[in-house]
């Protein structure tokens, strides 16, 4: 799984999307797939008691049966559709969709990957760039992630976000972020927030994401975790993966998934999506 990339990618995406879209929705979409699913993956412990813990974290987190469908492309579409129906806001629906898809696609880089085309196929899509190690617990996973190409991946997202440093400016916030989302004026009215406070709320997830990369990376070095920047590393952690039986099976499953998703998207658009979109507010 990606540790800090999900917090940072929202800023990068926002910079490159030309449509009117809510930044807060992109951020929420980026966090959505792991929002209610992470706790049982690492386990909830009170004292010596484990209250909540998935028996097989990788299967629970990314597979089926489990909550793996939260990392599928169709889940993002359905969630965005519900939000479009409730809020009548195109900017929020689109933002959530973009954020959730970004999360699902970013997570294909670890060894477990995601079931992008669920429910049409439960095939996992993975490049195997670094080892999925959530079964080692939160700290074991952090040590493995920040000793592998996973950590490099986070640094890459940090650099990508910094290449568009203008998105963090007061001017960008006032001229682009606020006019695209009615939530900001609402927050100002409701909580009496100053411009400085709203600006730091906007920047907070980037700063948190960046600090998280450095803090966990330094901690992993102090903990003595050996660095291994080979593909699929680190070598010292048990790597979980769900590969296809063979390439023939992979292509069959992928074909079924792509056709199924395309037909489902067309049906959703013609049956409800188009009507909801036309009735919605452009913001």
């Amino acid at each position, binding site marked *: 799984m990606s540790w800090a990339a999900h917090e940072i990618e929202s800023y990068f995406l926002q910079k490159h999307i030309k449509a009117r879209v809510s930044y807060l929705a992109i951020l929420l979409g980026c966090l959505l797939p792991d929002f209610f699913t992470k706790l049982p993956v690492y386990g909830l412990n009170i004292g010596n008691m484990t209250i909540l813990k998935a028996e097989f974290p990788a299967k629970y987190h990314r597979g089926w049966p489990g909550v793996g469908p939260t990392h599928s492309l169709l889940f993002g579409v359905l969630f965005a559709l519900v939000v479009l129906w409730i809020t009548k806001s195109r900017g929020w629906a689109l933002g959530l969709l973009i954020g959730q898809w970004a999360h699902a696609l970013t997570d294909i880089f670890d060894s477990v990957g995601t079931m992008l085309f669920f429910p049409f196929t439960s095939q996992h899509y993975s490049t195997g760039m670094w080892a999925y190690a959530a079964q080692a617990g939160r700290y074991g996973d952090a040590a493995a992630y920040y000793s592998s190409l996973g950590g490099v991946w986070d640094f890459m997202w940090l650099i990508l976000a910094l290449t568009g440093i203008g998105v963090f400016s007061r001017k960008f916030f006032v001229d682009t972020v606020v006019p695209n989302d009615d939530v900001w004026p609402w927050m100002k009215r409701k909580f009496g927030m100053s411009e400085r406070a709203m600006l730091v709320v906007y920047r907070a997830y980037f*700063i948190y994401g960046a*600090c*998280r990369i450095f*803090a966990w990376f330094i*901690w992993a070095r102090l903990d003595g975790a050996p660095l291994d920047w080979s593909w699929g590393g680190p070598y010292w952690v048990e790597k979980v993966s769900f590969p296809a039986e063979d390439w023939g099976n992979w292509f069959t499953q992928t074909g079924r998934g792509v056709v199924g998703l395309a037909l489902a998207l067309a049906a959703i658009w013609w049956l409800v999506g188009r009507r909801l979109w036309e009735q919605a507010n452009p913001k």
Partner: protein
Amino acid sequence: MQAEQTGASRKAEVLAYVFAVVTLIGFGVIVRTPILNFVCGPAWVIACVTLLTPRFEKVLNRT
């Protein structure tokens, strides 16, 4: 909405951001999950900047 910032105000805000970054990394290495989670981490940044900027501003104006 956009308010002009004075030199001292801008410096104070930058100082507050730097403080938030340094302390978040420092505490993060030591206490890890209790601060490096998606609620406390951003809340720490927001609290540092909103609470410390006016204080730093006062000190800078005095000096």
